[in-house]
């Protein structure tokens, strides 16, 4: 019997409306999608909190035309987790909207896939189209953490903690990881951005931002198999439907802010 975790999604920003042509490969400019939500996550057990991605920086969210809801750090505090005491931060991948608050975790040790670091510091970044979702200063901060002995590289698949396993999916980014978390409703796959929207898996619609298209598509199928086709156990990174399908723990005004993603539904 493994340890049981709660998975909280902190919905810190949103983008209302987004054209399919800006979202999916071969998407139509005539099809308008609901948009994207932006999340940071925290896994909580009796004695431990593991932060998964830190969310993007507020000025970048706003600068790129997204709407800020509230700081993911506030979300952690509302859950009783003090960012300055967090010991473990998993970086699912290093896109700007996931690594914008590394410095807010001064005591934390960070974990990321080795292929991700190689990609974001190497030749991949000499291609403008591939570097779009990465920012130099955040890649530099991750390098700095390595030299401070505060970053451990994960290779392939493995166990992160009792009840938390990581799987290298790749595709969307070179080192994109998914996490399998044991919850009160059984194993749940936190795909983060290995899947942005459920319809990527349901209809095999290819997200427009990728490192390796074929690997990304294979990842969709692999994760679908990991949950045996039960998509309620597969949590995408940006789907606006998440807030409709899982219990809201805290709202800010009308905006769902903290969601309980491991709850029995």
């Amino acid at each position, binding site marked *: 019997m493994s340890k049981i975790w709660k998975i909280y999604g902190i919905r810190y920003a949103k983008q209302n409306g987004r054209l399919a042509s800006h979202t999916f490969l071969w998407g139509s400019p005539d099809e308008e999608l609901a948009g994207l939500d932006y999340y940071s996550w925290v896994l909580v057990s009796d004695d431990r909190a593991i932060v998964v991605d830190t969310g993007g920086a507020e000025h970048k969210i706003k600068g790129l035309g997204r709407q800020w809801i509230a700081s993911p750090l506030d979300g952690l505090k509302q859950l009783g987790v003090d960012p300055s005491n967090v010991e473990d931060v998993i970086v699912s991948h290093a896109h700007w909207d996931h690594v914008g608050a590394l410095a807010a975790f001064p005591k934390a040790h960070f974990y990321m896939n*080795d292929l991700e*670091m*190689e990609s974001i*510091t*190497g*030749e991949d*970044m*000499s291609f*403008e189209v591939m*570097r779009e979702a*990465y*920012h*130099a200063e955040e*890649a*530099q901060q991750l*390098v*700095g953490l*390595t*030299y*401070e*002995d505060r*970053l*451990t*590289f994960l*290779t392939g698949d493995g166990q992160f903690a009792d009840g938390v396993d990581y799987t290298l999916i790749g595709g969307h980014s070179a080192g994109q990881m998914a996490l399998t978390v044991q919850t009160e409703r059984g194993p749940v796959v936190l795909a983060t951005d290995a899947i942005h929207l459920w319809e990527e898996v349901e209809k095999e619609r290819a997200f427009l931002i990728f490192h390796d298209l074929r690997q990304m598509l294979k990842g969709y199928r692999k994760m679908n198999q990991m949950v045996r086709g039960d998509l309620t156990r597969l949590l995408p990174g940006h789907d606006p439907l998440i807030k409709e399908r899982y219990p809201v723990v805290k709202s800010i005004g009308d905006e769902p802010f903290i969601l309980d993603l491991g709850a029995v539904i």
Partner: protein
Amino acid sequence: MPERYEAELFIGGRTDANWGMDYFFWMLRSGEEVIVVDTGANSAKMPAKGRTPLISIEAALAGVGVNAADVDKVFLTHAHWDHVGNLDSFPKAHFWMQQAEMASITGPDMTFAKIRGAYQSDEVQRLVGLVYEDRLTFLDGDGSFADGVDYLFMPGHSAGQTALQIETASGPLLLASDAVHYYREVAEELCFLAFNDAKEMLAGLRKCKALVGGNWDRMIPGHDPQITWRYPAETRLDNGDPVALRVDLPAMKPLEL
């Protein structure tokens, strides 16, 4: 001579043999074309590491008529602190380095304190910044850098250590950089104490030896003080210490091995 004992340099070295160590960067010139090879150590970092800076790289280049601010090509042989300490002295330059070096200095290798010792976090972060500024091109293995300048992948001392083979008026010259630190290191196959992969480093010594066909005057190691007194100096410090050495000209004195 500054002190650097054999036991600090090579596996099995003697504790009573002082080899000294000189620090270089290089500049290749053909007509108007200038290629700077490595950027030397940051002067501010040298005293804490027990090294004595002699001259800024800007002043050293100015002495031979080159304005660092105008240099447009900088080739990096590897990213150890004594080779990449002055990246921002070349604001207009484009840089070249091996992708294997970058993968090593930003990746799992750097979680080992013993491997990371010769790298500086701030300098590595600056190199990453250059990539995002479209000012750094990655090399993969061997190739031609310019007419008369070929690069040779020589990993071992570092994961992406690279040497240059340069055509000069007196024939081809192997600028080994730190694939070879001292002439005796390659002649006797000594194992330098800073390495990413010792076996590859030793294989690199043999490769360098074969490239020059046993003619040591066709090779310039990266740190040997013999370079300083064997080659003609074009510029000197006020105290007479040589600065800019013409290593492409015939050596003035025989090599001591």
